[in-house]
């Protein structure tokens, strides 16, 4: 086995492996990337029914109630970003840190009837912590400017209105 032949073998092996890795990654990306959306974005640009998205926002105070579908307990609540609220259905036990008026992220898909079916609901470990996505959304819609102190109390969220309509053009830019 000459040095040159060995090098050739190594190069072939490397190219084959890295190439298949890249191929697999791209294929997996194209079908498995999960976009984060706020309720208003979800309403404005509804994704395909089988597409998984992460829906983030605050749980509307007083919206949590329970239903039973086919003998399984379903938690129903609304998630809001201050612009729009979406009804979310989740079968299972809500995480320990789930509170009305606090931020959550729901993983699932939008149904034809406009409700969101979550397969997973995440609440953050720290109760004073706000998911970055939600904080960004708050800033984007003009409800909170970090320069002027702490974030507004979450329970007041769905009753607030945006400061100026100019945020709509912004949402087009960042929302797409």
């Amino acid at each position, binding site marked *: 086995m000459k040095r040159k032949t060995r090098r050739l073998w190594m190069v072939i092996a490397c190219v084959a492996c890295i190439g298949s890795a890249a191929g697999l990654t791209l294929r*997996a990306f194209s079908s498995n990337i999960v976009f*984060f959306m706020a309720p208003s974005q979800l309403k404005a640009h509804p994704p395909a029914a089988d597409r998984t998205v992460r829906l983030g926002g605050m749980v509307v105070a007083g919206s949590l109630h329970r239903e039973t579908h086919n003998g399984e307990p379903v938690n129903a609540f609304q998630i809001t970003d201050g612009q729009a609220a979406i009804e979310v259905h989740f079968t299972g*036990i*809500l995480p320990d840190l789930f509170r009305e008026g606090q931020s959550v992220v729901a993983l699932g898909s939008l149904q034809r009837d406009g409700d969101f079916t979550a397969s997973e609901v995440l609440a953050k*470990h720290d109760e004073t912590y706000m998911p970055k996505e939600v904080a960004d959304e708050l800033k984007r819609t003009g409800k909170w400017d970090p320069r002027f102190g702490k974030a507004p109390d979450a329970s007041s969220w769905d009753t607030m209105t945006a400061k100026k309509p100019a945020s709509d053009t912004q949402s087009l830019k960042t929302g797409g």
Partner: protein
Amino acid sequence: MFGPEQGHFALALACVLALVQFVLPLWGAARRNGRMVALAPYLAVSQLIALAMSFACLVLSAVRDDFSVQNVAANSSIAKPLLYKITGVWGNHEGSVLLWTLILGLCGAAVSVFGRNLPDILRARVLAILGGVSAGFQLFCLLTSDPFERVFPAPMDGQGMNPLLQDPGLAFHPPILYTGYVGFAVPFAFAVAALIEGRVDAAWGRWVRPWAVAAWCFLTCGIALGSWWSYYVLGWGGYWFWDPVENASLIPWLTGTALVHSAIVVEKREGLKIWTVLLAIATFSFSLSGTFLVRSGILNSVHAFANDPARGVFILGLLALVIGGSLALFAWRAPSLTSGGLFSPISREGSLVLNNILLCSICAVVVTGTMYPPFMQLLFGRTISVGKPFFDSATIPLTLPLLLAMGVGTALPWKRAQLAKTFSHLYAATGVAAIGVVLCFWKLSGILPVACGILAIWVIAASVSDVLRRLGLGHTGVRGMIARARSLPRSSWGAALAHIGAGIVVLGLCGMSQAEHAIVEIHVGETRSLGGDDWTLLDVHDRIGPNYKAMRADIAIHHNGRLVTIMHPERRDFTTQNQTTTEVSIHTNLITDLYGVIGDRHGSGANTTYVLRLHRNPLAPWMWLGGLVMAIGGAFSLSDRRLRVGAPKRSSIRNMARA
């Protein structure tokens, strides 16, 4: 004597000692100044003493409930049990950075003590590099995340620790995991020292491998422990979430595994030198960026400790310095390293190369999946995430050839192999794997789980048959085999054990892919069945714990009318933190885990219902047991005589003569 100020001073002292340890030995080695070179081990040990003192001060402040210390006030409280007062020290950002530097100091001291047979100059350079890294992180600790900061006025009681973190599993998870992360600093330092020296030979491979194996063992244990913790504490029924924090430990594990294997080639055949040096640098770089990028909140996740930009800038600078510096040195010096022995693609070396390429490809996939979302966020402002489906579909197809090669590789001889002869060694393993095919198609569903299951059985069978072949099965009698077992190098036993462990882990993962669960809402006395078991909710009652109130359920599980177990899942309400936790109840017979969680209570009186989540997880314990077997295999190979004593004497004489 052990107040926070003393601790702060000790930390500053350690930082200065580390700086001296960085500068003097390097200078001495360049100038061939024997005194400066000889100073390195003493500096490393004294740095460790100062760090231990500093850490002891922080632990004592927590034990004494000294709430004038900001860190203690924010993370502890009087009511917290003593064990968690101690372990809570590293449950937060500042404390964990201090623990990190303490372990790095420990590594330096270990090199000084166990590295007596290294050439003096090499040891001095290794210690200098470790000192430099140490100094950087101690500065980080002192300047941006001081664990000894005082508050005035001191609060009467602390804010307490997140009840989720009050768990013995988590208490020992960070030290073990950090030892794994930090342990890779030693191979890194060896690599940088070799680049400075411009020489990598078989002896270097023999010196660096035990350190890499030791770090790898700890990292393996740490990952397994972390996964086990999230399985039984978080109560989601899952074991791995492809969370950035978890990936941050998996990435260095992958390159570390590659390093442990490629160092064998350096040691035995003097091949793959440049590649091994690069792997050593990459592994530690991934460890560093894993711990600190994640901790600084750049990759946002549920685990993020700190969200402070000053820290972020400092840590990014430090990372750029360490990683960029070592890579620049690599680019400059690596071409001077000559490559060694020739081998054909079908040989032990060839299989190790394939192992390395595949491990690095998997690593590249995991890195992409972990870094792509934050980069998209940073560059284009789009928030996306990738999760389990992505990682499953991208990594498993690459794992399959890896498992296949694992079985073949150990049966191949060095340099050149004859395929026919090799396959004659593998008949037995192939036979077992054929039985595995039947078993997997019968028990598992889905293409990938079946394929992984078959290959895992293949790996285990091939490893066992390899050991038996080396023991001379069929050639010698029982007595001869025992004699051969005694003389068989421990590293061979270790390799076989580690491979069997990997097979067991994969089987556990395959089993978990067949897990079943049900979410039910039932009255007391009702029964539901899941996977052949009948789960009956016998009773639910309230219980008062030391700092919580709990709702405790009694669930009886019958299998074909025979009582299997009565389990008691709990839901605990921590009033001070306004937080609830679920205490999972798990019954295991090492084949199947029965896993019960109690959720909310609804209604009142006779109409009260409870939400329960019931899981049946086949082979779940195998995932962690397999991890343990892998680590034991690593430890076995560490205890090999050849790794501890050997050739170094000769070259150290040569070095001294040169000096």
